[in-house]
């Protein structure tokens, strides 16, 4: 059972992840499963990587997004549970990061959408389906327009 004081960390032995433009792409390298999270989910992942507690993550979300403490807490607890279930994060016993200034609510908080962990369980099947390609030499009728303006 997770508590709000718990801190999580990426399961680095099995997981590769990156956040770009607020979107997190996560790969479980042990089974080739792909995941993504956008917006609030991207922030959550960055804060997990930064070693923050669930309580701190909730505070950061509430300070930046137009959402109640209660809703943010419910979403963070749900998402943390899903990430653990997928073995993407583990409980962290490392020392907490240096304490930063308390979150203050921005006056211009962004619209909130509950974060989702998007799971792509069929990626392996889809990649297996994509055919091994022939070489161009094996396409005898290759049309002459390739690479030329038509």
């Amino acid at each position, binding site marked *: 059972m997770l508590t709000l004081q718990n801190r999580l960390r990426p399961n680095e032995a099995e997981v590769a992840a990156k956040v770009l433009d607020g979107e997190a792409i996560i790969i479980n390298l042990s089974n080739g499963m792909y995941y993504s999270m956008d917006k609030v989910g991207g922030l959550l992942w960055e804060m997990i990587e930064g070693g923050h507690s669930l309580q701190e993550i909730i505070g950061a979300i509430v300070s930046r997004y137009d959402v109640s403490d209660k809703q943010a807490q419910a979403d963070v607890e749900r998402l943390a549970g899903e990430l653990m279930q997928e073995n993407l994060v583990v409980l962290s016993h490392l020392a907490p990061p240096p304490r930063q200034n308390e979150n203050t609510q921005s006056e211009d908080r962004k619209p909130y959408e509950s974060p989702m962990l998007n799971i*792509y369980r*069929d990626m392996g099947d889809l990649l297996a389906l994509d055919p091994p390609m022939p070489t161009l030499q094996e396409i005898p*009728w290759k*049309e002459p327009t390739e690479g*030329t303006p038509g």
Partner: protein
Amino acid sequence: MRILLWSESFWPIIGGAEVLLAQVALALRERNCAVIVVTPQAALDLPSETQYKGVPVYRFPFWMALADANIDQLMEVRQRVAKLKRAFAPDVVHMHIVGASAFFYFQTADVHRAPLLVTLHGPGPNKDLGHDTLVGQTLRRADWVTACSAALLAEARHLVPEIIPCSSVIHNGLDVPLLNPEPLPSDTPRLLCLGRLINDKGFDLALTAFASLRGRFPHARLVIAGDGAARPALEQQAAELGLNGLVHFAGWVAPDKVPALINTATVVVMPSRWEEPFGLVALEAALMARPIVATDVGGLPEVVVHQQTGLLVEKEDSGALAEAIAMLLEQPESAILMGQTARHRAQKLFSLERCVDAYVALYRKLVQEAAHADAAESPAPQ
């Protein structure tokens, strides 16, 4: 309008969907749409930026980045796709053939928001289209889903009921070839199988059926055109059945040479054992006024009307296939009439113009709805 065609597969890869998509791209451009194609950079030396008859084609290493699970490469590809979407600023993204590359569509969906139209050209690799699958999420997030046949749409709606209110059938279409149909050769009847040489196409059943007809039609010949993994087995089967000299394996045929090839056939045979999503070869045959013997699977009964434009038989039944072929060879007047009926019906129901009209109408509807949604979301003027 600015249309981004996103396809898991595109020329020079050839299948029914790829042939259709290439024609749709050109037809959209003729209607003054700005069109680009985004497609995987396959594992061969195809250029990353090129043109198909004037339509810009951008190939990205989607499959390699995903298969390698290389997070840096994934990010780099994502950035390149995002840059292209920002620069092109499509009014609609029209995704054909949903596959692994859809992952990158989602990673760049917010870069430039545009309605998503998904066109299904075939069943996916599995029937599980749950919320935790890429194909399932793609269908659920689409603003509209079309399928190339009623059979395929029914299957998709069964698997993802959420799409029922925002989905429809748009049958594939083709232009009438410039070449006029030739009379059906009857003295030396020629049967034609055309398509990828894979088990799903059932060309082995055509060989078995043809062998059983050898005594009744000693002058008949069978042409199997196409290439694929099953070719060695089919060639061996033909030899074992004593059909050397009677069966010709023609190999790949360029799409623009297909009408001339079909013109040499008396009957076009499609013994598919898989659920053909549409069966573009049946349409190509119909446009050349050829009667068709096909299996009663998937979308084929929508293209081939039993006893009017051809004959439908149960799949995996080479005996029934042989009898249907024999009937058309023994009754040339019926065969001619069916071919002509097939051509008239194809021109009426399956023209490329009708198909593209339907897509363009849908683009307009989606753009309009997106504009209304944006207006509703905008804050009211003070």
